[in-house]
């Protein structure tokens, strides 16, 4: 039960429309991804809260269909 990168990107975009998202398939198996997400929604939030927002966007896929998503989040610099 793997997920493709497009699906992941769409789910994050739905929840965080302004997000700049970069997804890499680490192992080529559709199961190990690295994602960089930059969004204004992260401003003033701790890292745990930022990751939490992305996990919420993935609606339960994380830890289930999606085994591994290395996550790096930040707010835009401006």
């Amino acid at each position, binding site marked *: 039960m793997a997920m493709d990168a497009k699906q992941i990107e769409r789910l994050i975009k739905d929840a965080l429309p302004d997000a700049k998202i970069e997804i890499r398939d680490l192992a080529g198996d559709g199961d190990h991804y690295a994602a960089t997400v930059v969004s204004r929604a992260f401003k003033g939030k701790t*890292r*745990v809260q930022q*990751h*939490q927002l992305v*996990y919420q966007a993935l609606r339960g896929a994380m830890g289930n269909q999606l085994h591994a998503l290395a996550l790096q989040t930040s707010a835009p610099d401006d």
Partner: protein
Amino acid sequence: MSDVMQWIDQQVKSHDVVLFMKGTPDAPMCGFSGQVVQILDYLGVPYAGVNVLSSDDLRNGIKAYSDWPTIPQLYVKGEFIGGCDIVREMFQKGELQELLKENNIVAEQQSA
């Protein structure tokens, strides 16, 4: 609160540093858990390792307790710090070392 939740709560509150992980600090069963073990060992801080693979109740319980979908999960002084990515990023930026220092958690003396 269910028994397992109470047990988790007790671990979180009774250890300064506790890592919920797959496997044990001596034998991590997942690369992500292994990375956090390496960081904690490198820093030389004392910590308790809890193997979530020992029971399904525990494995699901910690996810609900922290409202966090993945393992490992690191707690310092009762506060949820994060999973592998966060711990690694904090370590690389020196923030984890800072956090431990602020909480008066010091590296164990190396035995000669």
